[in-house]
């Protein structure tokens, strides 16, 4: 288990939409070890409020040097993060948790909603980098077209030929939920392996569709986290059968086989 605590220099801070930012940090130790689906704990301020580091998925690594994060401003921690500028430094710990398993898969479908798109970009990049890239379909959902920012384009730019979009208001792509795209775009007979990250109700719908088609499904889950390294036991979630010891998202996840966890 290679994990590091790095004092990372901010190389670039880009505002993609009014709420979404992309932060590039020089963190070579983390960058050279990270796998898609893993996350980092990020210091957002050097004061005691906010106190705890914030968990953020690794959006991509660039050349064993840079770690890029894609985040939405939702509260005080992410707001303070958005105010940081190049040259400033912040501490981060990572890479943490288990990522997606995409080895030996014939046909993969990545389903992302909202900020859940963040780790899927890294995953798509790594899938396309494999020697014999499997078929890879990307389905993205957001409330409105504006919320996507440049992300759909980014997937196309790295060579994902099939990217389909859904918006709640129909301003781009299919009007409705991204889970509905699964049945529209994936051939039912095929053995698809689905990787999903996004709001809980969205993932629940994706898991349901996968069960009906008997497709494999990996989900990336979110919980409140204090430590990110399985010391506080704060990130507990129930197992599928609701009994036995809780699972811990930071250590057992954040990516789980959908059948391991309870869908309440």
């Amino acid at each position: 288990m290679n994990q590091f605590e790095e004092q990372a220099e901010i190389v670039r801070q880009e505002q993609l939409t009014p709420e979404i930012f992309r932060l590039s940090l020089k963190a070579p130790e983390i960058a050279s070890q990270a796998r898609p689906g893993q996350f980092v704990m990020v210091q957002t301020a050097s004061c005691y409020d906010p106190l705890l580091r914030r968990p953020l998925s690794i959006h991509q690594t660039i050349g064993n040097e840079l770690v890029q994060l894609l985040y939405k401003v939702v509260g005080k921690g992410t707001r303070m993060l958005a105010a940081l500028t190049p040259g400033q430094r912040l501490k981060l710990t990572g890479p943490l948790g288990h990522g997606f398993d995409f080895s030996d898969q014939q046909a993969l479908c990545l389903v992302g909603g909202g900020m859940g798109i963040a780790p899927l970009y890294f995953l798509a990049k790594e899938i396309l980098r494999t020697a014999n890239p499997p078929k890879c379909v990307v389905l993205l959902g957001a409330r409105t077209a504006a919320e996507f920012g440049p992300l759909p384009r980014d997937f196309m730019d790295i060579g994902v030929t099939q990217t389909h979009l859904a918006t709640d208001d129909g301003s781009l792509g299919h009007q409705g939920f991204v889970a509905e795209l699964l049945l529209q775009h994936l051939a039912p007979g095929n053995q698809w392996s689905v990787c999903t990250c996004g709001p809980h109700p969205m993932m629940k719908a994706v898991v349901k569709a996968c069960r009906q088609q008997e497709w494999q499904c990996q989900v990336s889950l979110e919980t409140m986290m204090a430590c990110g390294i399985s010391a506080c036991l704060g990130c507990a979630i129930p197992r599928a059968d609701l009994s036995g010891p809780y699972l811990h998202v930071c250590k057992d996840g954040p990516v789980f086989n959908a059948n391991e966890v309870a869908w309440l």
Partner: protein
Amino acid sequence: MNQPDLRVTIGDLVFKNPVLTASGTFGYAKEFAPFVNLHHLGGVVVKGISLAPRRGNPPPRIVETAGGMLNAIGLENVGLDRFISEKMDYLRGIGTRVIVNILGDSLEEYQTLAQRLSEVEGISGLEVNISCPNVKKGGVAFGTDPAMAEAVTRAVCAHTTLPVIVKLSPNVTDITQIARGVEAGGAQAVSLINTLLGMAIDVKSRRPKLANIVGGLSGPAIKPIALRMVWQVAQAVKIPVIGIGGITTTEDALEFLLAGATAIEVGTANFINPRASQEIVEGLGRYVTENKLSGISEVIGGLIVG
């Protein structure tokens, strides 16, 4: 240049420095091995162990508050047997003292834990948790009544050859009374404070933010209260006091030592900065050198009043 002398003594135990890690905030030490040279620490207090494994409370279990956090983990742990078979091998090799934090629902459970752990190699002492606010039975009941606190201490001491530290709850009217009870019961030391009972509400849903409704407050927010209690208890008992509560920097640690603590435990700070405990050890070393002290023990109880 000479190495600064950071040694402190608690009962018969000499610690290489006064910096320990607080139970429940440092896992079973292995979790922090990528970030901390574990052998640089004075000691490690492991996550509380009960006789049978415990599942803990339902999520959500943690919330951040201004300068602190609330937790309602509910003492989730692997239980005594798995602790001994799965965790002790690693702990024996970390090169520092290992203190095992124990908790039970009855006097018998505390006794059995004490007895069984005394037979295990590699443990330097027991920290008896009579102060967790997150469990319904036992726990806090033992810690809020001086006679009960004395009885638990006596029962544990009678069943172990290991030094016994009793960890006190701040959720009482007069913590010095509990400390006196524990001293009378035969403890080698007291540690304080455990978390303060608190709560947080989501105003949108009008629901409590913790599934358990209430939880334990920890972190920098509680430091002034912890410091006051350590100072009070250090004057009330003759046995050594271990200070806990919001210690995040070297200066925080020094404040507790000046107030009369012989050692300190770093808790929530481990989450904010996984290297916090080691940085405090290094900071205390610099303090001793820069102030030309004979050793850190010169600082203990050095508060000047009046």
